[in-house]
Each structure stands twice: as C-alpha cells, then as structure tokens.
C-alpha cells in the first residue's frame, strides 16, 4: 500500500456515505475511525514526501494529459495537515455543540437547528473530502469540480443554522461561490482551447503570452479572489461566517477560504509564473493591504462577537496576499513564500479557536452582543483563555504561529527594500490587538447578577483551547512545517528559516 495519497480523499467520502446509512451511534464510530484513518494515511504520505520528494499518483493508470494525476509536495502536505487537524478538532467541538443544542428547543440566537443537525456529519465529511481533493489535484478541470463540491458543502452547512439571517447569508454565499466557479471554469475552457491540456504541470510548459491565456489568468484569478473573499470582493463573507452554526463558522473561516487561496498560489507561481509581470503581484499586494485595514477597522466597529471575528477574517486574508509582491526566486522571495503559507496555517488554528470560543459563549448566553459579554471571563475561563491565546497569534506576538509568519514576511519586505509592506503588517497587528482587547475588556468585566446562563459541555471548551494552544505554540515548532514547505516549492535555496530569530 504505497498510495497513501488517495486515502485522504477516499476515506471521508466513504465515511460520508456510510454515516447516512448507519444509525446515530454507528455513525459516530464510522466518523471516528475515518478520522484515525485519515491521520494515518497523511502520516504515511508525509513520510514519503519527506524522504522521496513530491509524490504523484496517476489515477486509473492513465498518464496525463489523457488522465488525471494527484500530486503532493510540501505545500499540499502542510495544507492537508492543516485541514485534518483543524477539521478533526472542529468535529470534536461539534459533538458537544449539537448535543447541547438539541437539548433545548433552540434559542433565538442559535436558531432552530436541532432538526437537521445530524446532517452536519455527512456535510462536514464531504467538505473535508473536497478540501483534500483540492489540495491534491493536479488537473485544472478536476479542480473546478472540487471547488463546486467545496462551495455547495459550505453553503449547505451555513443553512444548518436555519433562521432567516442564515438563509439569506447562505444564498449570498452560494451566488458568490457559483459566480466565482463559473469565472474559473471560463478560464479552464480558454486554457484548454489554447494549450490543449488540463494537467497543471503540462500547462506550465505550454502557456505563453497570448491574449486567451491573459484572459484565462484574469477570470480565474477574479473568480478565486471572490471565493477567497479578498477586499473588495469580501461582501458575502461576514454574514455567512457570522450566522452559521459555530463549528461551521470555524470550518469556513479557518479552512474553506484557504482552499481558493491555495489554488491561486499554485496557479500564479507554478503555472502562470512565466507570463505574469511583477506588477500583477503588486496589485494583489495592494488589495491585501486594503483588506487588512478595512477588515480590521470594521471589526472594531462591530456590535456582535461573531461578526467581529468574521471581519477579522477579512483582515487576516489580506496578509496572505502580501506574499504575492514579495515572493520570487531570491533569498527573500523564499522567506516571503514560507511566511505567507505559514500564515495560512497559523490563522487556520487561531481563527477556528476564536470562532469556537465565540460559539461557546453564544451557547451559554443565547446571544453574542459584545456589550453584554460581562462575566464570561469568570464563567467560561477556558474559552476566554482560548480566545486570548488565539488573539495573540492574530496580533503576531511571539511565540505564536502568527509571529513567525509575520516575521518572515517582514524580513522579506525589508530585504527587498519594500519596507512599506512591513509597515502595514505592524499596523495590522496593532489593529488586531485593538479588537481582541475590545472583547477581552467586555468579558472580564464583573459578572452581573441577573444574567441567565446555561452550562455548556466541557468538550467544546477543550477543543477550542487545544487549537488556541496549537496556534500559540506553532512558532516554537515552526521548523518542521517550514522545512516541509520547501519540498517541491517554486523557490528553492534559502530555507526561509534562517531569518528566524
């Protein structure tokens, strides 16, 4: 069994199918075993990539360009670990969340989703499979199918919340997602018409400065930016992420937006790199800066906790795009590449922890109004601690994962003489500190006597805390993922790690 690479996709799909057929108790066993199997397969794949470099799997034995190939390099493996670890802990959290929720008739704030909450599990497994399929696929049309799978699973999960706000937010999300996919699909059609292949590797040798290729790059990039919710295409994200059930908010903010970012990274640096002028990267960088500022300022102005966290996602997505003007075949280019991708990893852990902590508070209080959070620091100390730790990573303070990511980007900005990108990173960190303290100040206010409060399952608090600790300590164990990221990376030489303090 050398083909570890296929199981992260096949196992969740099989588990989703079986869990729909099995009873409630049996479904738990199936999902648990599937998670273990995915972790095992991923460990096997990581070892293979570590020892032998990038792995390929020719599906059906049909070599590209006729068939489809799976491809795993360091970047894919790091993304797979991100989605597996964060996804599994969100699953653990969801166990508590939906058990807590179906215990009551449902409150106004959490919606009436006791009804359909069993569907969370197959949808979550499908989402997982879609993410893994996307991270492993090396075929631009197959990637389109995985994008649609991911989008539909995401919207269906948002709708689990039931209420009016969630339905409307789900529709806005669905329309944005479909529009993004169609733009990407048009690009695929133009690329096939010009180059006659769909395999990523073969495409990279065939693209040339041709009008149809330019157009394909433009529409694919726009479609993926819309899906990644980069400013100014972020309008659909805050309502969808804020009105979904808490585990779903965590999945969407931590993982789903990273998928289209990952695809953009692949296309820009491994397919289109020969035809893209440097100014294109500068444009994406500027949009990233605007996203950091706009998202942070709006986060500071929110009245609801989950909306605040959602706008923080809009801001944090901006950092990912600072990578584009800085990365390149230079010493600092490798550091920027590592920093940007490491930021995706750190943000996934931190943001999932934040949404989970926010969801716990919402489950305890029945609402998430910021100015009525007083006393949460005493009632739910673990959750508040998790929120604060995750906040440290968002601010970029040592030793968190966010610190390492920003340090690498800062290093690249200074080394390349483009100090202004670095200045934005620091301003963004200060703004993040602003909205994190806004929440902490409210939560640590003395407990009012007349507030009704429902106890929440401890497993929810522990799951959030584990992810927050992971985000906080990621900086101390940054070397293995950063080394892994170098395997098969477009910019070799200069590990990026020697820049670390």
């Amino acid at each position, binding site marked *: 069994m050398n083909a570890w690479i296929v199981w992260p996709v096949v196992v969740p799909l099989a588990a989703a199918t079986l869990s729909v057929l099995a009873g409630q108790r049996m479904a738990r066993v199936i999902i648990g075993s599937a998670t273990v199997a995915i972790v095992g397969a991923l460990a096997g794949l990581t070892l293979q990539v570590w020892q032998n470099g990038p792995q390929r799997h020719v599906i059906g034995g049909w070599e590209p360009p006729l068939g489809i190939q799976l491809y795993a390099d360091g970047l894919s493996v790091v993304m797979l670990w991100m989605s597996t670890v964060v996804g599994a802990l969100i699953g653990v959290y969801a166990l508590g969340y939906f058990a807590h929720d179906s215990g009551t008739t449902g409150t106004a704030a959490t919606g009436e989703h006791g009804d359909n909450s069993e569907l969370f599990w197959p949808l979550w497994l499908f989402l997982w499979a879609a993410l893994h399929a996307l991270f492993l696929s090396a075929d631009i*049309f197959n990637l389109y199918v995985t994008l649609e799978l991911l989008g539909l699973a995401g919207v269906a999960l948002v709708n689990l919340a039931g209420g009016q706000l969630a339905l*409307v937010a789900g529709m806005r999300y669905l329309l944005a997602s479909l529009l993004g996919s169609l733009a990407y699909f048009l690009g695929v059609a133009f690329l096939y018409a010009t180059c006659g292949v769909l395999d990523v590797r073969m495409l990279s040798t065939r693209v040339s400065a041709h009008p149809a290729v330019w157009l394909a790059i433009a529409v694919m990039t726009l479609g993926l930016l819309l899906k990644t919710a980069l400013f100014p295409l972020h309008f659909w994200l805050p309502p969808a992420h804020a009105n979904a059930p808490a585990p779903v908010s965590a999945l969407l903010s931590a993982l789903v937006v990273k998928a289209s970012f990952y695809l953009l990274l692949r296309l820009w640096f491994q397919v289109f790199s020969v035809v893209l002028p440097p100014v294109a990267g500068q444009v994406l960088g500027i949009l990233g800066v605007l996203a950091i500022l706009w998202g942070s300022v709006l986060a500071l102005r929110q009245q609801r906790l989950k909306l605040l966290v959602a706008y923080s996602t809009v801001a944090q997505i901006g950092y990912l795009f600072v990578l584009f003007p800085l990365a390149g075949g230079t010493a600092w280019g490798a550091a920027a590449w590592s920093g940007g991708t490491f930021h995706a990893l750190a943000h996934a852990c931190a943001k999932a922890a934040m949404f989970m902590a926010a969801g716990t508070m919402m489950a305890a209080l029945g609402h998430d109004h910021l100015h009525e959070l007083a006393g949460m620091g005493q009632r739910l100390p673990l959750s508040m601690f998790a929120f604060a730790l995750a906040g440290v990573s968002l601010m970029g303070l040592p030793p968190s994962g966010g610190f390492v990511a920003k340090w690498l980007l800062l290093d690249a900005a200074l080394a390349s003489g483009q100090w202004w990108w670095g200045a934005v990173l620091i301003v963004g960190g200060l703004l993040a500190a602003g909205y994190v303290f806004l929440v902490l100040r409210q939560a640590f206010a003395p407990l009012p006597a007349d507030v009704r409060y429902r106890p929440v399952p401890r497993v929810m608090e522990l799951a959030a805390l584990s992810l927050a600790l992971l985000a906080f300590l990621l900086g101390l164990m940054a070397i293995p993922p950063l080394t892994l990221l170098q395997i098969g990376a477009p910019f070799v030489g200069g590990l990026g790690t020697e820049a670390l303090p």
Partner: protein
Amino acid sequence: MNAAVLYTLMGVGLFSIGLHGFLAQPHLLRKVLALNIMGSGVFAVLMATAWRGPQLPPDPVPHALVLTGIVVAVSATAFALALLRRIHTATGRASLPEDTAA
C-alpha cells in the same frame, strides 16, 4: 472564420449576457437563471474547442467536460431553487435585502 469561432463568440456573448443579468437583476430566480446562462456560455466555448476540421472526428474530452459541467450545474441550480423557496417562505421576499433597499 469557421463554425468553431462562431460558437466561441456565441459562448462569450452568452457569458456576458448572463453576467449582466446576474449583476443587474435583484430577483433571486433571475440571478439563478443568469448563472445558468453564463454556464451555457462556458459550455459553448468548451464545445467549440472540440472542432478540429470538417473531416476529422471531434475531440471527446471537451464533450465529457461539458457533461460533467452540466451535472454540476443541475445540482447547484436545484439546491439554489430550494434555498430560494425557503427564503421566500421565511422573509416573504425573493431578493437579497441590499437589493431591495437600493
């Protein structure tokens, strides 16, 4: 100028018409239909690439891609329509709030 170019032009035309409708029409049903028109445009562009000359057999790969694309479009459309009905039941409206306010 051959038939394939004509189909490609028709495809990009449909895509643009669809996008215009998607952006201009506030009604959700029209938005869903507009997305389908855009999708048909992409299918037409893809189908045109299958043409290789008057005497030669067409390229089957774009045909297969379009068939897959159609199934994906059917799924997304059905889901969007079901969601649209729920929104109408819950809110009494069939457009997004920001469009109605505008």
